[in-house]
């Protein structure tokens, strides 16, 4: 196999590191085309603005929450990608941040990435993460289905659901 060249990925990382030296906590290139950046949750909007305007990642393909009950934290992952810049179209940048498990809240990025609208609503109802500044933070999928706490949290168990 040919040697994988990661120059574009590293370029993005260097750009980010020089711009936000204090915000970026950890940087990882999982494999070619996947970059994971762990950052401080207070600076999400600046980072998103930079990613959109200067790095060219103009939309998010999804927002995922991951619950860690033992570490008392919820991770929120933003999967950002680009349509408009052909040379970085294949890269997915995963912006990862940690929130405290009780009273999880983070600033909304809908004003920057409009595509995050429904993803933020979904993460809100599945994990209870409050996106401050979201224009329309209502329940989306489980309106009549489920009236308990957010169902994707790990402490809500449905043991009958799986296998033996």
């Amino acid at each position, binding site marked *: 196999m040919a040697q994988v060249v990661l120059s574009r990925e590293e370029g993005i990382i260097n750009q980010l590191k020089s711009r936000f030296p204090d915000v970026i906590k950890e940087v990882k290139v999982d494999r070619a085309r996947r970059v994971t950046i762990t950052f401080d949750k207070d600076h999400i909007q600046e980072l998103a603005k930079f990613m959109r305007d200067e790095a060219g990642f103009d939309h998010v393909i999804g927002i995922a929450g991951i619950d860690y009950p033992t570490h008392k934290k919820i991770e929120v992952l933003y999967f950002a990608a680009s349509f408009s810049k052909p040379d970085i179209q294949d890269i997915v940048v995963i912006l990862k941040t940690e929130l405290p498990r009780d009273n999880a809240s983070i600033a909304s990025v809908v004003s920057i990435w409009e595509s995050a609208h429904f993803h933020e609503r979904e993460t809100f109802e599945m994990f209870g993460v409050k996106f401050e500044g979201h224009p329309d933070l209502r329940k989306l999928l*489980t*309106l*009549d*289905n*489920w009236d*308990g706490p957010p*169902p994707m949290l790990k402490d*809500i168990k*449905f043991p*009958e*659901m799986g296998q033996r």
Partner: protein
Amino acid sequence: MSQETLQDFAGVWIGKISEVVKTLTGSGPIKYLINWSRMYALWPVHITTACCSAEFGAMMGPRLDPERFGLQAVAGGLRQCDLLIVEGTVTKKMAKRLKIVYEQMAKPRYVIAMGDCACSGGLFHDSYSIVNDVHQLFPVDVYVPGCPPRPEALLSAIVKLREKIRREEVFA
């Protein structure tokens, strides 16, 4: 004769006549005729509860052509429909709507539970937003397993339902 005795008299006779009509129509050729007409006019409601609708569409398609059995092309009006095919998973959110739809349908009405999810919850059984058994909502006449069932399997269920209607009492 006072009015009350007249009413009693009339009431008794009306009751007797209706008994005779019931016994006449509930047996023999008239019953056969009524059931035959019901058999050939099964109109399904088009409420797609989940993904089995793809195979429902395939059954309605040109290959099997259920109009041979009088299964009319999907009509929008609920009051004219008498067959409810529950096409797949019924979520708690949909169950409310499904019940409203069922109650609006014309009597006698028949229900086919199509697919595993309608029969028992299937792959998604005991999930937090699922109604496991459709028969908790209304009585089900035929269960079709399969995930999704082949269109032929659904048509075989309709043939089975017709068999049930043919043997049915007119005044149940």
